[in-house]
């Protein structure tokens, strides 16, 4: 049977992609951002740690979806997804290879589990999806694993509640566990952390709140699922709402997690960058 082996969060700022492309990732500004990923870039290349599939939760930034169609939760079931042209030409990264068997299995299972997914068969993927892949895998000829895109609307209000995201994650965990092939799956949640890209309040960063949120992903508590939208908006800026996507990752890991790696840094362009790696554990092993 398939199993969820780890959960990873990563910011997905387009400037990170630009830094990789222009080779400036080791300078004084970007160095501390990228250095924080080094332990996990090494860890994922160790035997047994590279997943067969990543389910990558992200938000489309007005690339595949415009104002015409706004799916709350959409799952990419295609064989391949191409990098989108977001106004400066497509990012020069490999095509993203999907896993249609698992994606369709999850889509069907979720619908029977009362999560009414939108199914996408043709879709370009933007920096929200490809920047986290670059951060974890570096510059490669082809991505080292398959990827199932799971797009969440966090642009047009209301986005899904934190509780709904967490519950969707739990349902994805059940769906993965019922897939008959013996493959390992990582759940990635992307975006965040505190940032505001608009208006006179642009540039807002709340390190104390962000770290509270990171703490809440570790261990047995599920209190993060009850944070209302207004708290994200007030405390973390208008784009901090992306963090609800991390709760899908957390929900899929089950009742308890152990921390493998944690990295927090300000600034990354307008944004606080948060990168955390968790593994699912049995609840009873906490505090042992």
């Amino acid at each position, binding site marked *: 049977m398939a199993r969820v082996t780890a959960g990873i969060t990563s910011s997905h*700022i*387009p*400037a990170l992609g*630009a830094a990789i492309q222009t080779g400036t990732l080791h300078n004084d500004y970007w160095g501390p951002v990228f250095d924080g990923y080094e332990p996990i870039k090494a860890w994922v290349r160790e035997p047994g740690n590279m997943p067969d599939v990543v389910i990558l939760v992200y938000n489309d*930034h*007005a*690339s595949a979806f*415009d*104002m*015409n169609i706004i799916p709350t939760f959409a799952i990419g079931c295609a064989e391949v997804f191409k990098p*989108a*042209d*977001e*106004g*400066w*030409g497509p990012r020069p990264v490999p095509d993203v290879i999907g896993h249609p068997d698992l994606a369709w299995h999850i889509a069907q299972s979720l619908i029977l589990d009362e999560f009414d997914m939108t199914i996408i068969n043709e879709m370009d993927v933007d920096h929200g999806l490809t920047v986290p892949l670059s951060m974890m895998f570096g510059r490669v000829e082809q991505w080292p694993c398959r990827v199932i895109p799971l797009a969440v609307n966090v*642009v*047009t*209000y*209301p986005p899904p*509640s934190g*509780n709904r995201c967490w*519950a969707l994650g*739990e349902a994805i965990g059940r769906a993965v566990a019922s897939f008959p092939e013996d493959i390992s799956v990582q759940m990635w949640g992307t975006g965040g952390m*505190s940032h*505001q*890209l*608009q*208006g*006179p*309040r*642009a*540039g*807002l*960063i*709340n*390190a104390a*709140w962000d770290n509270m949120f990171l703490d809440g992903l570790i261990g047995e508590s*599920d209190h993060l699922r*009850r944070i*209302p*939208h*207004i708290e994200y*908006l*007030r*405390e973390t*800026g*208008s*784009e901090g709402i992306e963090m609800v996507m991390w709760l899908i990752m957390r929900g899929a890991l089950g009742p308890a997690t152990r921390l493998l790696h944690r990295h927090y840094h*300000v*600034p990354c*362009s*307008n944004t*606080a960058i948060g990168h955390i790696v968790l593994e699912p554990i049995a609840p009873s092993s906490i505090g042992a």
Partner: protein
Amino acid sequence: MTDKKERIDIHAYLAEFDDIPGTRVFTAQRARKGYWLNQFAMSLMKEENRSRFLADEKAYLDEWELTDAAKAAVLARDYNAMIDEGGNIYFLSKLFSTDKKSFQFAAGSMTGMSQEEYAEMMLKGGRSPQGQRSIKGGY
């Protein structure tokens, strides 16, 4: 199953958004107002449209059902005014990308600070949430 559902009053939910200083939440109302402004911005994802737009911005804008205020805001690259017209920053990013400008440039331009001041603020840890959370509450 731990899917505990809490019923949210839609009116109270939306009303709270107006209490955040310097922020326009992209509600359905704004999405409807800015529909064509955002769709115009989306069109700049194609190289041929970017070239046509840059060659004659006014003529390109006239192809869209935009208000005069929206057109003026685009021509002036006034991002606050575009957001007032229902623009959303992720859609508008196609416009500043067409101009070869970054998210930090666009965000900074909305704060009343110079680019240097804004970049300096971010280097020092960003804008503090202190006093920026609630207009009524002043916290």
